[in-house]
């Protein structure tokens, strides 16, 4: 394909730009709960994010990458003019990245996922017409934006209610916290590992038998739970803080669980959002290398690394500041609440990633927080802000689409 190297270079640059934006903003919100509850310092949060975003992207991000790459647009229509797909994907990356940048500056709550989906729809409609978009797939993605916060909310409600029932409402909550906390760690790790084994790993070329998957997940869960249990056993009761209930100590036990939550959130985020950024890059590479619109080509592993590196770079340069701000503002979330919300969100996201649905991490987390609120777990939630977040979902898609159409025609004019 002529000019293939130019396209590849542009794809790498735009992909990095997009990944940088995700790292700088989205990750900050995902990690903020653990920083806010003082389970992790900012430095530790960045380290955890770097490691687990990476593994999440590589191990569990494949399906979403495919959806973004070829699930939403009828690639067969590009067979005659493959460079149009390249222009489109470049425009989509640039549009989503730009929209993220503008929104970050203005302080609007937007979603990376929604931007990129809007942008891809935008160029497909502009370049090939309304029929080029697989509306059924887009419909299921849009539906998942409603379903995922609700699912996360229900899971968070269930988790927090169980914590209330098993631990907080007891007369000696600390005894029960010590007893049940490792169980919660086990369940979290077990479920996330299981989903990853079932849905994610086939992408890296690993196939695990069902029985083996359960065994491995259980093993990983037990190991992490035992480690967590050891840390919990080292927590001393602060006799002076409260004589009757020791909620301070109970919350410090949940602080250990928050570390598990932080890792799960970073992993879940990596599996879904890194894939958003590299999906278009992967599409461009496959077209540029082969010169045709291949439907089945594998995603080169270095692309995933590119996405991961971009995210870590964004975190290091700008995300640090955002985590600090969000983390210090989010202190109303105690570890028991943060754990419930974080685990519910992480589970929902990993499941969605496994089925190839690009969903929004932060919106899922907002749904989970509302779920904890419904269990009478949070002292006050501002419904105005929640309403504004909901409104922003709707605005982001046309914004991404319009920007992408503009970039698409500019690129076509300049390069075509």
């Amino acid at each position, binding site marked *: 394909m002529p000019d293939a190297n130019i396209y590849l270079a542009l794809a790498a640059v735009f992909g990095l730009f997009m990944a940088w934006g995700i790292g700088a*903003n*989205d990750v*900050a*919100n995902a990690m*903020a709960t653990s920083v*806010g509850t003082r389970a992790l310092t900012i430095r530790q949060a960045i380290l955890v994010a770097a490691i687990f975003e990476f593994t999440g992207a590589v191990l569990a991000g494949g399906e979403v990458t495919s959806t973004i790459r070829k699930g939403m647009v009828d690639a067969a229509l590009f067979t005659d003019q493959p460079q149009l797909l390249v222009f489109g994907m470049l425009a989509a990356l640039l549009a989503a990245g730009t929209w*993220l940048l503008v*929104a*970050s500056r203005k*302080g*609007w*709550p*937007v979603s990376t996922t929604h931007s990129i989906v809007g942008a891809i729809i935008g160029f497909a409609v502009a370049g090939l017409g309304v029929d080029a978009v697989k509306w059924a797939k887009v419909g299921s993605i849009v539906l998942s934006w409603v379903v995922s916060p609700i699912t996360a909310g229900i899971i968070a409600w269930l988790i*927090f209610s169980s914590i*209330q029932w098993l631990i*907080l*409402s*007891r*007369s000696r*909550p600390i005894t029960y916290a010590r007893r049940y906390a490792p169980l919660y760690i086990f369940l979290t790790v077990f479920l996330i590992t299981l989903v990853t084994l079932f849905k994610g790993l086939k992408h890296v070329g690993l196939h695990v038998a069902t029985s083996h998957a359960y065994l491995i997940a259980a093993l990983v869960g037990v190991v992490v739970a035992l480690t967590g249990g050891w840390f919990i056993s080292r927590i001393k009761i602060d006799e002076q803080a*409260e004589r*009757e*209930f020791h*909620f301070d100590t109970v919350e410090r036990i949940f602080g250990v669980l928050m570390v598990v939550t932080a890792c799960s959130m970073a992993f879940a985020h990596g599996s879904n959002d890194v894939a958003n950024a590299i999906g278009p890059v992967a599409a461009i590479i496959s077209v540029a290398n082969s010169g045709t619109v291949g439907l089945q080509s594998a995603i080169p592993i270095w692309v995933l690394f590119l996405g991961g590196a971009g995210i870590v770079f964004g975190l290091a340069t700008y995300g640090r500041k*955002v985590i600090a*701000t*969000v983390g210090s*503002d*989010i202190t*109303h*979330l*105690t570890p028991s609440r943060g754990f419930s919300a974080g685990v519910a969100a992480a589970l929902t996201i990993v499941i969605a990633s496994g089925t190839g649905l690009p969903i929004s991490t*932060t919106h899922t*987390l*907002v749904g989970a*927080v*509302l779920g904890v*609120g419904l*269990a*009478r*777990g*949070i*002292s*006050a*939630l*501002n*419904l*105005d*802000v*929640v309403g*504004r*977040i909901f409104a922003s979902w709707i605005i982001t898609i046309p914004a991404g689409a319009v920007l992408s159409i503009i970039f698409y025609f500019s690129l076509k004019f300049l390069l075509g």
Partner: protein
Amino acid sequence: MGNYLANIFAASPVRPIQEHMEQCYRASDELVDFFRHTIAGDWDAARVSRQRIVDLEHAADGLKKQLRGQIPKRLFMPVPREDLLDLIWVQDQIPNRARDISGLVIGREITLPEVIQDSFLAFVARNADAAKMARKTINELDELYETGFQGAEVQLVETLINELDQIEDDTDDMQASIRKQLFDIEQQLPPIEVMFLYRIIELTGDIGDMAERVGRRLELMLAR
């Protein structure tokens, strides 16, 4: 997009409510000292004490206003907004009464008749006890939020409310017996002064009533 996740968390009203109750209790406690000074005839000390009560009442008022601004309509809370506003209103009546009583006594330079002095001091102190007990129950509010208003913590708060009720019963009994004592000697006192003495007894009893109503409000929150 920064901190919109953080923005959905509104500031918790628990700490300010507890802080407000603290001021209310201190005003009722200061009233005991105030009466001690007037009975000793030390009006300078009584004026200083009265000023402290007024300052505490102002502080409580400031906190009340801040609290009302802090819980706007579009807030999603585990407890209905109206219940919280009611609770603050009831708490706020305690320093208001302390201010009114001390104001009346200072303004008219009322000295309590010797016969009722001891029992009245005990009566004021018992009302302050009721306010102290109300403060203790309100101090459990953060634990109630922590447990989501259920379980063993609720039982603890219910026992506290029962104790509060008993203290309030005491103040009612004391109020009745002081009225009786005053009734027995009222013919020997200037009629206008007797009028105001009855008024002071009534207002002082209100402190215990209000403290009990703080408990009632809390009980309503638990009942939901």
